């Protein structure tokens, strides 16, 4: 989405520069110019329509959570938009009409109510939940680095001709993909100490997450490694490179590029799975904070929505970063 729009906006910038001279010299436009402008206009219209649609959908979403109510009134010839407000003094609540639209024709009796949120709660807990962002990002970043290293090793192991390495890599992927992440977190936190390995809550979580995502990502990386054509390997070998030089200098750099978009997908998923690490009790990221804020006062939905806004924000920012990275890696494609 952003990539596409961005390149469009980039295009506008160029266009503005180049059309300026033709404005100062009001010579009749050539056929080429007319056609160019027509095509440009069509593209801009598309972008604007997309942006408008997004805004409309965001507004719809906001409306669904506005707590407003649509009601027919005055014998169905009006639609009233009402709000459920606390009348001062007593704790009773009642509908207060904000405004009403005359629809003219009687549209029958109906009432449509939307989801009411406790905005007071939101205001009070917003900052508390927000402060979990850095924990979430920190765990995810540490874990994705661990996962990337493990995934690369596992993917290389899958290509190994040395049986124990091949077996280890397939065993790892199978075992970890085959069992729930939650169990893995618990295992690293509470069972490993019995084997003499004592990890803090954070590190138990990071290692469990890294191992887990590493197993899933190894399949991505394997596909990436396989996507680098045989010709590339042969060219490297024919030049006298060793297997490991070939891998490090020729294959992996190209495979990584192929692997960036799906790895981005995984990182976005990990932002949310990092919440499982909270179960250890030593990490207080966004979702833990949402639970701690919302559950005791029965404002779960509100708390989760605040968390969701942060997650969405992080996801969008990260996607933008990812686009940049993809563009950088595609520099050989121009």
């Amino acid at each position, binding site marked *: 989405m952003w990539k596409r729009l961005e390149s469009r906006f980039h295009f506008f910038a160029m266009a503005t520069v180049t059309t300026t001279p033709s404005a100062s010299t009001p010579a009749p436009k050539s056929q080429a110019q007319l056609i160019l402008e027509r095509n440009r206009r069509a593209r801009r219209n598309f972008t604007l329509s997309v942006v408008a649609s997004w805004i409309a959908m965001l507004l719809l979403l906001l409306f669904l959570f506005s707590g407003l109510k649509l009601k027919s009134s005055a014998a169905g010839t009006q639609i009233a938009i009402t709000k459920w407000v606390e009348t001062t003094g007593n704790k009773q609540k009642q509908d207060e009409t904000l405004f009403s639209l005359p629809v003219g024709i009687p549209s029958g009796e109906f009432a449509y109510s939307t989801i009411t949120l406790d905005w007071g709660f939101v205001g009070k807990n917003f900052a508390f939940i927000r402060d979990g962002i850095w924990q979430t990002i920190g765990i995810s970043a540490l874990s994705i680095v661990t996962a990337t290293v493990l995934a690369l090793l596992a993917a290389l192991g899958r290509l190994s001709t040395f049986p124990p390495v091949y077996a280890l890599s397939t065993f790892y992927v199978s075992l970890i993909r085959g069992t729930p992440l939650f169990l893995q977190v618990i295992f690293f936190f509470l069972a490993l100490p019995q084997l003499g390995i004592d990890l803090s809550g954070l590190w138990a979580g990071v290692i469990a997450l890294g191992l887990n995502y590493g197993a899933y990502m190894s399949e991505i990386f394997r596909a990436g490694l396989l996507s680098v054509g045989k010709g590339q390997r042969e060219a490297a070998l024919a030049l006298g490179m060793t297997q490991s030089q070939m891998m490090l200098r020729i294959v992996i750099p190209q495979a990584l590029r192929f692997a960036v978009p799906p790895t981005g997908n995984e990182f976005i998923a990990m932002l949310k799975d990092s919440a499982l690490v909270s179960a250890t*009790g030593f990490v207080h990221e966004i979702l833990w904070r949402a639970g701690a804020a919302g559950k005791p006062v029965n404002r779960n939905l509100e708390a989760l929505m605040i968390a969701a806004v942060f997650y969405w924000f992080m996801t969008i920012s990260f996607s933008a970063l990812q686009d940049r990275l993809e563009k950088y890696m595609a520099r050989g494609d121009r």
Partner: protein
Amino acid sequence: GGGATEAPKDLLGQIMARGTLVVSTDPNYAPQSVAKPDGKRTEGTKCASDQLTAGELEGFDVDVALELGKRLGVETCFVTPGWDLITAGSWADKWDISVGSMTITTGRQQVLHFTSPYYYTPAQFAAAADSGIASLDDIANQPVCVGVATTYESYLNKKFDDLGLPESSIYAQPPEGVTVIPLTSDQDCAQSIGAGRTDFQVYLTSGTVVDQNIASGVPVVKVGSPVYSEDLSVAIDKSHSLDPTSLVSKLDEAVKAMHTDGTLAKLSNQWFGIDLTQAPNK
């Protein structure tokens, strides 16, 4: 984890040497323990950076834990593992004790040491305000929501052995023919009713939770009087690598002292509005 320089002989020694008592608590129960949205880390704390301090939590359990720390002469620090992990024992020395309104059950006694109870809560049925359910008799043959793996579930399933309560604590027999609906936590029951779901109208939980539900605006009412009373106590992991016995007896003494000098009663009145620290007698 530990932090002592010279190897202490037992858990109590380790706590004294470390200067902190690491307490696990579930911060999802108001008014027992709640994270303060505007909480600040206590200044000059000895707590590790991934532990919470007195300034970041509040509630009855929190105050009891702070008082216990004070009486041991150490600072109290808090960690917040999942409730399942706390009740299951095998804490791998990650924290010292639990002060989390934990009911003493037969199962838990196999893996945890308990002090004598520091307070008692009544188990209370509640129903949606508009459901028309007004007495215990109305509950028969209804679906009833509870938190999964709670004493309330054991009670409804008539597993009194699992419950392990003395005869005198049980005031009423469970209603007949109910369908038990176990949700992830007690709070989810009230939340479902509050959201307008109609899968069930009744739930069973602690009276303090029901009070809190009503106070926070969930349209529910109490049904009948409490059906049994739970003994809630401080728990210590039996499988700790250091001997916990001296800690258990020290804490037990402290709890008893807090009963006699009125500290607990004062805290109970402060947080619940009534004194829940007197042992039940039918």
